[in-house]
């Protein structure tokens, strides 16, 4: 191979699309979301490019949630089975919450399961297992895992969740502080907000704003000034290092 002709054809943080040639030559390596074709590296999904040394990979911008073990998500009860509940988790596959993982208490055989979770209830759960065929098991036993009461549910793009949460939860705590709302962001994009009605609306708008501008920089400042305007209060941000 001609090592002299290695060429990078894109920049870091570019939006790349399927079939786009990212680099030429054997000096670069294909990572997630890319593949090698002869001496070229080509993107195979819509995403944001990140260059790590010689490795080119893309972060997805669209698509359904892919269940991952230990993720904390919010699901909606869509069916009640003999042995548990079926949850819609905003993915291609439903999740199953088995009886033994639903509560710390004992559920007698033949008990009325709607007493614990009713259809259309929203539940914060943790994924315990994902099989090769994408059968998803979840649990409701653990810290912060519970049924949701009151508040409102909004759905956001699952790939923007890291941005909404921010570095070490900085973004979400900024919103919490400004609005006084309780917020739970599931990794699958389902988000629960509870607080004063006006503040809930402000929160929803702030989250939508982050979702729309997730691929841009300087977002924290924009969100901060929006929140200050909407709530009419100054927010003091302590930057923890």
């Amino acid at each position: 191979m001609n090592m002299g002709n290695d060429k990078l054809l894109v920049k870091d943080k570019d939006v790349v699309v399927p079939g786009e040639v990212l680099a030429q030559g054997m000096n670069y390596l294909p990572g997630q979301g890319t593949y090698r074709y002869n001496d070229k590296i080509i993107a195979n999904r819509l995403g944001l490019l990140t260059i790590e040394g010689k490795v080119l990979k893309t972060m997805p911008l669209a698509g359904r949630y892919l269940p991952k073990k230990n993720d904390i998500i919010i699901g909606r009860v869509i069916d009640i089975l003999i042995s548990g509940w079926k949850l819609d988790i905003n993915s291609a596959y439903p999740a199953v919450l088995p009886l033994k993982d639903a509560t710390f208490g004992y559920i007698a055989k033949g008990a009325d399961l709607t007493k614990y979770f009713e259809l259309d209830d929203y539940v914060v759960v943790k994924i315990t297992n994902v099989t090769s065929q994408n059968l998803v098991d979840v649990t409701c036993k653990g810290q912060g895992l519970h049924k949701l009461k009151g508040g409102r549910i909004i759905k956001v793009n699952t790939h923007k969740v890291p941005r909404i949460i921010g570095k070490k939860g900085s973004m979400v705590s900024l919103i919490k502080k400004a609005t006084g709302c309780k917020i739970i962001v599931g990794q699958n994009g389902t988000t629960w907000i509870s607080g004063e009605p006006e503040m809930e609306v402000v929160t929803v708008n702030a989250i939508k704003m982050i979702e729309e501008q997730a691929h841009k920089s300087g977002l924290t400042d924009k969100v901060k000034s929006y929140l200050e305007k909407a709530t009419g209060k100054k927010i003091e941000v302590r930057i923890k290092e």
Partner: protein
Amino acid sequence: MESRYNKRLDGRGFEETRPIIARAGVINKADGSAMFRIGRTTAYAAVYGPRELHPKHLQDPKKGVLRCNYNMMPFSAEERVRPGPSRRSREISMVTEKALLPVVNLEDYPNAVVDVFIELIETDAGSRCAGICAASIALADAGIIMKDMVAAVSTGVIDHRIVIDLDGEEEHLADLDVADIPIAMIPSTEEITLLQMDGKASKEELFRAIEMVKPVLKRIAEVQRKALKEKYKG
């Protein structure tokens, strides 16, 4: 061989397509969507999924299933199109699916389905090709893993002259022999994923047509990619 078709009816060059407009993300409810307009043929495509596939016997435990649906709106053509599936629309749905299948990778989604709905609101020849172009943008917009886009355009042979992107008028020329050859291709590998022919053309003419359409399809693929990038700009 001498051709009697020396000037196109609308004054285009022989290798020139009609004006193309492409946009991604036009339908909010869908997981991915696109609009593709070539001349007076407009296709909208919406992608839903991957999601659970019902009825269950259609599920494939090894990989996800791609399901395409081509539909012409009742008002899309000169004469009213009867709503609902027809022999023609089922055939086009099937060839569209086969044209797109070689690029999509659904191995991560066993037992699931990706649904593609293609709606034609305005047709003036080349509707299946417009549908494939729109569907391919919509699939990418939905975040499906695909090794490349699929670009398609209809090619024609009018009295031994090879012509790119026939319009309705050319397709219905009465006094000359017209062959309509819709072609879809994966630009990076130049694999042909759709090739149909309606009308008479010689073997040599068909081969020449395929060679001539390749650069055109690569240009169309660029338009498709630009549409996707446009969605995330500014």
